[in-house]
């Protein structure tokens, strides 16, 4: 297990309590605040992420826009998504969103993962993949409401943003935060980030962005990566940021009631058989049945 200095709130596919004697998490855990209204799309965060995590994605092809690479991958854990949006007033807005893991308080990936300890949620709120336990089944992708995890074709392990759990564990801020030149990325306790966001939103509203707001979706219990959006009423404008993300009901049923119900029903079926045998007993044939069979055979032979 990596990062044993951190308390763990939840582990995938584990029904017993996780190691958490320290209980030092304060301020609602840690959070990254991404202020899309301050972002200039320079991709310094992408570069810093590559550098700190030793990631080098394959060189892709130009798809006619600034977005590069075109999508998240096992080697690109964060990505500036560029959306050109025409406002009702006729203005062209360039909405740039730094995409990556949202570190949900109720993580769909962790809920779906069948491998014990392959996905952990630290007490500070970071959701981390431990690739040494990953079996490569892809259930995390099925469970994620934000389409974030990617499985490597090379080692068949799932990867995504770690929120620099290794840096945060030793009191450093994530690499992307350190690189941001405009202060669009800030990092601290979740409570502090909400306060900071509130100030920013007030400022934006005074500048005419009436619908400016914080994206901290309640459907996944809130997230430890939050956005300040100019148009918080229309998150889908930002390259399809989900309006109301939540763990799919199908995944909830699959990973919720189905599991204990299935074990109980299988056990019940086996027990029902066992006690039927004890109660009613086996269905056996004896010499009388053999005699009756001979009689019938003889009769049938006589009258074909």
């Amino acid at each position, binding site marked *: 297990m990596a990062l044993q200095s951190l308390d763990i709130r939840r582990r995938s*596919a584990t029904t017993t309590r996780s190691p958490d004697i320290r209980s030092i998490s304060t301020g609602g855990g840690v959070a990254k605040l991404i202020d899309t209204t301050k972002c200039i799309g320079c991709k310094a965060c992408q570069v810093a992420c590559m550098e700190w995590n030793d990631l080098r994605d394959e060189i892709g092809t130009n798809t006619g826009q600034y977005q590069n690479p075109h999508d998240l991958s096992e080697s690109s854990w964060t990505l500036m998504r560029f959306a050109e949006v025409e406002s009702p007033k006729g203005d062209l807005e360039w909405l740039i969103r730094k995409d990556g893991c949202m570190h949900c308080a109720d993580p769909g990936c962790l809920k779906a993962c069948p491998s*014990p300890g392959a996905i952990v949620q630290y007490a500070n709120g970071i959701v981390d993949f431990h690739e040494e336990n990953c079996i490569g089944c892809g259930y995390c992708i099925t469970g994620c409401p934000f389409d974030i995890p990617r499985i490597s074709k090379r080692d068949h392990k799932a990867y995504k943003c770690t929120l620099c759990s290794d840096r945060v564990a030793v009191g450093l801020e994530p690499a992307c935060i350190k690189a941001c030149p405009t202060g669009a990325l800030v990092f601290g306790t979740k409570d502090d980030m909400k306060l900071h966001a509130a100030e920013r939103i007030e400022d934006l509203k005074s500048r005419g962005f009436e619908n400016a707001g914080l994206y901290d979706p309640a459907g996944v219990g809130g997230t430890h990566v939050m956005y300040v959006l100019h148009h918080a009423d229309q998150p889908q404008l930002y390259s399809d940021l989900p309006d109301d993300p939540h763990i799919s009901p199908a995944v909830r049923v699959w990973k919720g009631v189905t599991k204990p119900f*299935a074990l109980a029903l299988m056990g019940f079926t086996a027990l029902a*058989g066992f006690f039927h*045998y004890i109660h009613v007993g086996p*269905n056996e044939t004896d*010499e009388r049945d*053999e005699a009756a069979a001979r009689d019938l*055979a003889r009769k049938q032979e006589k009258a074909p």
Partner: protein
Amino acid sequence: MSDPRAPIGSAEQREAAEARRRDLILRYSAAVRTRHWLVAIAFVLAALSGLALFHPALFGLSGLFGGGPWTRVLHPFLGLLMVVIFLILAGAVAADNRMEPRDWAWLRQYRDVVNNREDRLPEVGRYNAGQKLIFYVILACLVGLLLTGLPMWHAYFSMYLPVGLIRLSSVVHAVCALVLICTIIVHIYAAIWVKGSVHAMTRGTVTPGWAWKHHRAWFRETMTHAANSRPRAD
């Protein structure tokens, strides 16, 4: 084979004649027994590997397959193997599994069935209504498992399909597997309950008394058939 009285015909006919010489009745030919046990083995492996991926309490079963990643790699192939062999088996037994009017009467008298009061039941052909139902439930579950398992197969299919379909497939796959496993538990128990069934599926033969008691209509058929195919006594 050097026996001049050996009947000419298919392997199954030779097996049937051999059984008659020992006053037994051939119920499952070697070919059917082989298919049955191949399906059974594939089912056990697919079920154990699938259960490992289904519930944390059963993840330890992945150790039987060489660990988590190997379980993830092998499970879909084991499942595919099970479906393919079952379809081959089903081709041999489907004709005898058609539901007939007397089967519904048999089902309505389920109390007599589970209490070993077979004398009160309508005559049964090669398979009783319970066996036929099990056949159809297994067939439906396997089709369901195949159709939902392919979208879940991350290595080859998932990336081409919408995530909503994969989510739905995941829960339906689990439900189909649950129904299949419970059905197989019933199937295995029935074989333990009705003595002589295991012998039929391992050695191929049953006694005339067994056939008379449990499958009388089939017993009549085999008697007629045997009379017709008996070599002349002269």
